[in-house]
């Protein structure tokens, strides 16, 4: 990795930040939207999430579970009808969620995002090299020639062939465009990189290439990486820790090793079991019926109860509290009681299974 791409100048922390504090730490974040009929919808309901330098954290959950809303809150990019109701988002100790938020204008220097569907995010009439250079010029205040030179190196680093760097976005393949987006995101040498479904539209080979690139960036720059996806296999390959979201809450979190080898929450079990796996030769899948709840009209009790095979009367009345166990595992399910703080044994939720390909 060349020096040009970013980590050359020692990171200057923004004013008020504290190098000893955690890199990014979200506590009790709650975000709601006002609907056109005046009701409020809580899209993110008290989540905790943190990432350390060089660490990769996965955030998974079905469509509508609030993943992108959480990113919006971190970046100060919530839709006009959305607002942060509670909680803190601390970057090196600075609370980004506080009133008169510090870093309102400059947080993209510290935290960068790559979204799904990069064609819309790139300007169609400007060459990719110029777009990256422009970002460097504007954000880091580099003179034009230096910025052009840096842009070239950065595009090389993300794997865009040299002869393609003067192409317009539509002349690049989907994978190349996504790399160009990554180059724009990395142009300010951020400390945290958030990928919101960065590979969802891509096919397996390009996806693998992009993921490998992200992984390299993380190791070489010590980037904190938050990877949002609904594909758990991607998280299994990439991340150290994982948080599973359902209807605005994190229902289970912990190290990838722990959660993937011994999933405890019934929803985690369903997500993990729902996809077949050619590499592991698994064809039997768990069938999770129904669909996520309407967030503007949530029933009392556990949000997952209508779809949960383990649900009982208590689940339909009382919200399960989130309990922290050993090894940083958290779990929100009535079926697991606190006990002595040791990790409880997983209970297998009896989902209907489907043996596909049974001739």
């Amino acid at each position, binding site marked *: 990795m060349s020096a040009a791409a970013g980590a050359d100048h020692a990171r200057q922390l923004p004013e008020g930040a504290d190098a000893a504090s955690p890199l990014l730490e979200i506590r009790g974040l709650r975000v709601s939207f006002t609907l056109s009929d005046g009701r409020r919808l809580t899209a993110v309901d008290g989540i905790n999430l943190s990432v350390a330098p060089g660490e990769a954290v996965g955030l998974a959950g*079905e*469509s*509508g579970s609030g993943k*992108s809303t959480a990113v919006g809150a971190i970046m100060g990019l919530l839709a006009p009808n959305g607002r942060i109701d509670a909680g803190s988002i601390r970057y090196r100790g600075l609370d980004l969620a506080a009133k008169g938020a510090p870093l309102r204008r400059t947080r993209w220097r510290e935290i960068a995002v790559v979204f799904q569907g990069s064609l*819309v995010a790139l300007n169609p009439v400007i060459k990719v090299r110029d777009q990256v250079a422009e970002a460097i010029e504007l954000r880091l205040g580099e003179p034009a020639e230096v910025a052009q030179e840096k842009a070239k190196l950065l595009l090389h680093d993300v794997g865009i062939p040299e002869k393609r760097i003067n192409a317009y976005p539509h002349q690049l393949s989907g994978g190349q465009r996504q790399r160009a987006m990554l180059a724009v995101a990395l142009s300010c040498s951020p400390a945290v990189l958030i990928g919101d479904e960065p590979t969802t539209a891509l096919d397996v080979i390009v996806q693998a290439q992009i993921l490998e690139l992200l992984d390299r960036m993380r190791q070489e720059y010590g980037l904190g990486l938050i990877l949002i996806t609904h594909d758990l296999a991607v998280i299994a390959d990439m991340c150290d820790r994982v948080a599973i979201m359902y209807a605005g809450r994190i229902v289970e979190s912990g190290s990838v090793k722990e959660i993937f080898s011994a999933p405890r929450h019934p929803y985690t079990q369903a997500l993990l079991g729902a996809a077949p796996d050619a590499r592991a030769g698994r064809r039997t899948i768990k069938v999770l019926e129904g*669909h*996520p709840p*309407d*967030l*503007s009209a949530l029933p009392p009790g556990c949000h997952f109860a209508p779809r949960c095979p383990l649900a009982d009367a208590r689940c339909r009345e009382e919200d399960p509290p989130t309990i922290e166990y050993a090894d940083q595992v958290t779990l929100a399910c009535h079926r697991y009681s606190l006990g002595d703080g040791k990790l409880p044994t997983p209970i297998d939720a009896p989902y209907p299974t489907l043996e596909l390909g049974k001739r």
Partner: protein
Amino acid sequence: MSGSTTVTLSTRIRKRVSGGNRIMRMLLHRWDARVAIIILSLLTLSGVAPEALVGPLQTATTATADALLPPSGTHLFGTDDLGRDLLNLTVHGARISLVVGALSAAITLVIGGGIGMIAGYRGGRVDALLMRVADTFLILPTFVLALILAPILRELIGDQTEIFGIRTTLLTIVAVIGFTSWSSTARIVRSQTLSLRERTFVERARLVGLSPMRIIARHIFPNIRTVLLANGIVVIAGSILTESTLSFIGLGDPFQPSWGTILGNAQSAAAPSLGAWWFIAAPGCAILITVVACTVIGNAIDELLDRDVRVRR
């Protein structure tokens, strides 16, 4: 894909009704569109029931006031060279202007919409041919056409025919405007149709064997309805302007004074040199306000549609 997986149990009826309401609600969110809607409602009211507002249309014989009186308490807009009350004339003129505008817009939409959809859906040679025809109509000088069409139409439909209370002379104007303005509508509709044609639901309809005409009726038309509405409102504005121009140069009907006719009268009565500004101001402002109001609403619908599309993608 939007994040919404909400399933509401509303019925189809409610949905269908709320389709039109939705546009209205969205329009009412914008102050400029709100003002324009109020203005157009008032104008429509005067077009529908001018007698109720200002009494029967005054003619040279029923005029009671002195000629060329400036605006005053009794004659809010002043009087013209025959002593007719300009408020009375302008309010009655609204009917003619609006009806002519609406009728020509209807012709424009039917011809332009039909040809645009067929050209866009069929593509290839049909498209090329229809678009050349459209181009030809685009460059036809409106008022040469009016001079040619007037006798032909009179021959065809006779002198005494009336539609919505307007007579042959004005119908000529309607026809002329309709014939000359459909081509731009056809272009807009064609480009919309071209992109709709590539949508999966149209491809699927083709796959199951629906005929082109049915595909146009069921899938293309419902999806460009709002575009047509926006375009139609803008066309009304254009028609009102064209009608005014044609009436101004004397192609109108002296017995059915429109705003353009009043302006023409002002011109022949040498109102500008006599300093009778109100003679020009009354019809002039009416035209201006109507055209601006129509354009505002048309553009607002257009913008809302645009945003709709962006949000969905």
